[in-house]
């Protein structure tokens, strides 16, 4: 599974504080720790911490790049921000994210093609997050079609069918699983399927338990990437065990260590 570490996000107090003080150490510690824990990519999100998101994002990018060559997922919904930041990031990038909006999606896809970046496409249109399965699949198909039209390879496309907190929207976790199963069949090769996993438990009790249970369900339904907290060891272990049970790895007694060794090697 492709893990995008979620921790460098201004929504977290420690990160917000570091961004405000331009204190590199906590950011770099998080970058190293997440990579060590199995993240192949690092999400970079300034959250509400700055009035100048481009400047703050670039500071985060430069800070992380001093210690890590991991792919960076530049997390900001605004076109004006993405078009400024993506071309300036050294190394591999993911544009996170674009909505499945006929009017604006092309721009994001082209930005990805021009910069050899990957793109997270959300199944959200102007009407917002769909409440049903079919609309999610329809918007996913639109993202895949736009990517194909503009020459963005499918392995650079991540479709996110949008998970909502189970306490607010109890139907959504089930609907997203059904959507994942169908999105997987969109094309051959299939696009990556990703979720911002922690959102499923936002505002809930026993968040870690809900996250890891839903991770195993989503991976079983076809999700092959996730934005999550790789420092949650039990969560990562659940994901590793799920992939083992899907025959994506060969068992050995030290299968947890073996998986982490493989991630570090690639």
């Amino acid at each position, binding site marked *: 599974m492709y893990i995008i570490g979620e921790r460098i996000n201004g929504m977290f107090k420690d990160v917000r504080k570091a961004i405000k003080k331009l204190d590199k150490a906590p950011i770099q510690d998080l970058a190293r720790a997440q990579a060590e824990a199995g993240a192949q990519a690092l999400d970079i999100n300034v959250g509400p911490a700055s009035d100048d998101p481009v400047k703050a994002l670039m500071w985060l990018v430069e800070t992380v790049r001093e210690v890590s060559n991991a792919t960076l997922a530049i997390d900001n919904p605004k076109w004006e921000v993405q078009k400024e930041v993506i071309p300036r990031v050294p190394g591999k990038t993911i544009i996170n994210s674009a909505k499945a909006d006929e009017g604006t999606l092309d721009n994001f896809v082209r930005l990805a093609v021009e910069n050899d970046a990957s793109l997270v496409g959300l199944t959200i249109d102007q009407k917002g997050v769909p409440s049903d399965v079919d609309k999610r699949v329809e918007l996913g198909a639109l993202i895949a079609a736009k990517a194909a039209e503009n020459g963005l390879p499918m392995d650079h496309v991540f479709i996110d069918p949008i998970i909502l907190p189970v306490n607010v929207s109890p139907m959504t976790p089930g609907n997203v699983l059904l959507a994942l199963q169908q999105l997987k069949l969109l094309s051959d090769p299939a696009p990556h399927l990703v979720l911002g996993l922690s959102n499923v438990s936002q505002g809930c009790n026993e968040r870690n338990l809900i996250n890891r249970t839903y991770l195993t369900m989503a991976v079983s339904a076809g999700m092959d990437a996730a934005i999550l907290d790789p420092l949650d060891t039990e969560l990562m272990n659940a994901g590793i065990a799920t992939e083992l049970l899907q025959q994506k*790895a*060969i*068992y*050995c*007694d*030290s299968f947890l*260590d*073996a998986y982490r*060794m*493989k991630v570090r*090697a*690639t």
Partner: protein
Amino acid sequence: MKAKDTAQRWSAAINTVTIGGGARKSVTIGGAKCIPWMSYEGDIGNRPAVGIEIWDAGADAWAEEIRKQYGKVTSDPVAWAKRAAELKPDLLSLRLMGTHPDTTNRSPADAAAVVKAVLGAVDLPLIVWGCGVSDKDNVVLPKCSEAASGQNCLFGSATEKNYRTIVAACLADGHKLIAESPLDINIAKQVNILAHDAGFALENIVIFPTTAAMGYGFEYVYSIMERARLAGLGGDPLLKQPILCDAGIEAWRAKEAQAPDDALPNAGPAAERGPLWETLTAVNYLQAGADLIILRHPKAVMAVKEAIGRLHSGAASIA
């Protein structure tokens, strides 16, 4: 219309392992970036190597047909090594059966002297095996490793239950290591991770999933080698090691190989049947990804070398 490109793409290469070197000849195995011989999918890597097996003692138990080929030298490992070297193998495989507690029970010092003498007599890279009794190997192999220090031999074998001593010896004296796992791919990974955790580089390991002769579980080993190779090419660092195949010893356990003419009257002459059984066992494993094959009978050595040459140049010509 252009034909669809059906070539598979592999994300990783099998490790290369070099045995010998310096003043001694060397051989490098592994390096494939595709499944065996599929040169249109990637680099097929180094030519599989052929080793000839010799014993320090106890070869009187070997099949008559093989002993006929070597004559008296099988009672003298140095003379045997020289004779085997004339057959131009890539390396020799010395099994220290004389140290077995149930037979001559030779001492670690005696075994080390044999290793040293063989290394002095031939300039080929050397594989050194213990007798297979863990407690004895744990005292014999460190001495042999020390005696061969700097010669970059391949030592066998580390197993899931017994690896620390041999790993430490190989680390100290600069040798490569055989990681053995009896017919079990899960254990193949586990032995590697254990050796790795004990400080041994995965790049210096050759995996030995044990070998079965044709007709005696061959398909089982073949499928394990296949799975290991596919996982290795897919990037699993614990299965990216070159694979050793001990074809000679296993093929000659088969009655089809060793039975005299009067015991199997309709199966062809023993003089042909034995080497053929050994050759076919080995050649079939070449298709599963064997990188290093150990053989006994000179005819099998010639035939397998020829088969490797044909497969290698044939594959190279369609790359």
